[in-house]
C-alpha cells in the first residue's frame, strides 16, 4: 500500500478539526476526498504531506504511513527529502504556487535538478518533454515566459508539470481545478488522470465536486466535519450511497432530467470546529436523523458511518 492513513486525529491549539480519519491509496489508484469547505479536506492534505507544523498542527492519534514509513516519526530533514521528490503537491491556486519573478522553465527545471540530480541541459530537456506531454503548445516559448503571461489553465498545467518532474510516487492535488473554467477543468482533470494511470502513481484528489469524482476517481472518501462519513468504490457509492450526506452531495448537481424546483441543496452549513454537535456531526442537517444520532457517534462500518443508512445501499 502506498499511502495508509489510520485513525488520524489532528489538533491545532485547542481545537481538533480531524478525528479518526482513515483511508488508503495504492499505486495507480485515484482516491477522491470530497466534502464541503470546512470539512477538513485541505488539513488532510497537509497531514499527508507532513506540512502540519506550518500551521502549528499536531497529529495526536493515528498514523500517516507513506510506503510503510510513519511520517509523524520522521525528522524534518527526512520529510523534506520525501516532499517534492516522492510526494508531489498540486495546489488550488496556480498563481501562488509559482514564483512571479522567475521564468517558467527555471521553476520546472529546478525540480529535476534538485531531486534527480540532472544537469541544467538535461533538466531543460526533461521540462520540455513534460510540457509537451501536458499539451502545452510552443513549450520552448513558454519556458521563457513569466507566470503572469500565461492563462490560469496553462499555469495549472505548469504546476502539474512541477509536481511530476521529480517522478513522485504520490500526488496530492488540492482542488486543482476549482479556479478554472469548465472547459479547462475538463482538460486538466483528464490530463491528470492519464498521467497517473500511465506512470502508476497514486493520486489523492481533493475536491468538493461530485461530478469530478464520478469522472476520474476509482474510490472516494466522503469527509464531513472532520470525520469520514462514507468510503468505498466510486461505482457503488454513486449507485447506492448509504450515507444521507453522500446522497445530498450528489443531488446538489443538476443534471439532465432534474425537475425545475427540485434542487434544494443541503440545509444549514458545516458546523465550525468549535460548535461540533454531539453524536453524528451531520444530524442537525440530516433528513433521516433519529434520537440515537444526536447521542452516539456512529462507527465506520461497511464503508459508512451512519445509524440510519439509506435503503438499498451495499451491506
Amino acid at each position, binding site marked *: 500500500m502506498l499511502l495508509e492513513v489510520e485513525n488520524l486525529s489532528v489538533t491545532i491549539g485547542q481545537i481538533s478539526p480531524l478525528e479518526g480519519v482513515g483511508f488508503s491509496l495504492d499505486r495507480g489508484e485515484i482516491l477522491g476526498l470530497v466534502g*464541503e*469547505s470546512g470539512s477538513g479536506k485541505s488539513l488532510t492534505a497537509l497531514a499527508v504531506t507532513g506540512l502540519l507544523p506550518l500551521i502549528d498542527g499536531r497529529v495526536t492519534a493515528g498514523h500517516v504511513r507513506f510506503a510503510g514509513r510513519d511520517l509523524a516519526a520522521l525528522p524534518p530533514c527526512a520529510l523534506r527529502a520525501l516532499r517534492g521528490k516522492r510526494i508531489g503537491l498540486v495546489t488550488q491556486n496556480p498563481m501562488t504556487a509559482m514564483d512571479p519573478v522567475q521564468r517558467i522553465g527555471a521553476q520546472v527545471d529546478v525540480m529535476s535538478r534538485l531531486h534527480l540530480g540532472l544537469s541544467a541541459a538535461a533538466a531543460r530537456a526533461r521540462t520540455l518533454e513534460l510540457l509537451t506531454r501536458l*499539451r502545452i*503548445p510552443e513549450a520552448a516559448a513558454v519556458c521563457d515566459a513569466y507566470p503572469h503571461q500565461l*492563462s*490560469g489553465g*496553462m499555469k495549472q498545467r505548469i504546476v502539474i508539470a512541477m509536481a511530476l518532474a521529480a517522478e513522485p510516487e504520490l500526488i496530492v492535488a488540492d482542488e486543482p481545478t476549482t479556479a478554472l*473554467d*469548465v*472547459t*479547462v*477543468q*475538463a*482538460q486538466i*482533470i*483528464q490530463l491528470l488522470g492519464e498521467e497517473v494511470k500511465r506512470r502508476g502513481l497514486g493520486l489523492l484528489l481533493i475536491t*468538493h*465536486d*461530485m*461530478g*469530478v*469524482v*464520478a*469522472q*476520474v476517481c476509482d474510490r472516494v472518501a466522503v469527509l464531513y466535519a472532520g470525520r469520514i462519513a462514507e468510503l468505498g468504490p*466510486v*461505482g457503488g457509492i*454513486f*449507485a447506492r450511497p448509504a450515507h444521507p450526506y453522500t446522497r*445530498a*452531495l*450528489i*443531488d*446538489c*448537481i*443538476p*443534471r*439532465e432530467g*432534474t425537475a*425545475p*424546483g427540485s*434542487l*434544494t*441543496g*443541503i*440545509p444549514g*452549513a458545516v458546523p465550525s470546529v468549535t460548535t461540533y454537535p454531539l453524536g453524528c456531526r451531520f444530524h442537525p442537517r440530516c433528513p433521516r436523523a433519529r434520537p440515537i444520532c444526536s447521542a452516539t457517534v456512529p462507527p465506520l462500518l461497511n464503508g459508512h458511518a451512519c445509524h440510519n443508512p439509506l435503503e438499498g445501499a451495499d451491506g
Partner: protein
Amino acid sequence: MAEPLVTLRGLSRRFDTPAAFGRPARSMMAVRDVSLDILCGATIGVVGESGCGKSTLARLVLRLIEPTGGTVHFDGADITALSARAMRPLRQRMAMVFQDPYSSLDPRFRISDVLEEPFRVQGLPVPPGRITELLGLVGLSPAMAGNYPHQLSGGQRQRLGIARALALSPDFLVLDEPTASLDVSIQAQIIALLERLRAELGLTYLFISHDLGLVRYFCSSIVVMYLGSVVEVLADPALPPRHPYTSALMESSFIPDPAARRLLAPLTGEIPSPYNLPPGCAFATRCPAATDLCRHTAPTLISDTGGHALACHHPPEPAAGGATP
C-alpha cells in the same frame, strides 16, 4: 410574459489600452453587437468562459459602464440616452448580485446598514420592518441585523447580497455568477432561493455563469458567448446545442454518475487574444469542424422562427424531432 422588459440592440463595448512603456496602443471588443430581448418573467442565462465578455455585458445592461455602441431599452425607455439624474428612479427597478460575496460587502457596515444603503442612495425613508422582512425573505435570521459581514459564512453573505438587491423591490436582477465562489451544497441552496424569489416576486433574471449544466437547469433560455460575440441562442434549454462551442461546453461539464464517464475530446488550442482576434470565426482555432471559410469569414448570427439563433458556417444537422422546422 410577452412584453420585453429589457431590449438590447447592437450593444458593443470597446476597451482601449493606451500606449505605455514602449507598448503600442491597442483595443479590444469586450462585447460585440449583442441584440437580445429579455421578456418579463424570463430567466436568461449567459454562458461562456472567462474573458468572453459576459460580465461586461451584465454591467452594460445596468449601465454601470457606458457602451461604445448600441442601445439598452428598459421598459421602453432608452437608458443609454438618459442622464444620471434621469436614470436614478429607473435604478430602483434594477439591481445586481455580485460574484464575490466577500468583496461586495463593506466590512465596516452592519447587516442593517448594508440593507439600508439602497434607500439612502435613493433618498427614500426605510419602511418600518423592511429590514426584518428582507432578511426573512432570503432565509437569514432577523437577529443578525446588528452583525458584521465577517460573522457570516459565504452562503449567508450571498443571501445578504441578494437581500440588498431586493431592497427597493426591483423588477429585474442581474446575477453575475452568484454561486461561482460557493460550495456545491451552498450553490444549490442559493439557486433554490433564487427560484423561490422568482416565483414569489415575479422577478426577471439575467443570469451570468460559466456552468452550462446549472444554466440548463435554472434558465428559460440560454445565450452562449465566445470572445465578445453571441454564437448561439437556445430558446429552450432542453434542446440539443448546434454550435460546436456549445457542444464542447456541454461535453466539459461532468455528470455525477460514474456510469456516464466518458473520454472527453477536450478543446485543443488556446483561446485567441481578444486584442488580436483572427479574421474569421473567433472559435475556428479550437473548432474540430473549422474550414478555410471559417478562418477567413466571420459567420453572422442567424435566427430561425423558433427563437434559436446560431453563428456557424458548418452547423451539424439538427437532430430528428428537433424544434427547428
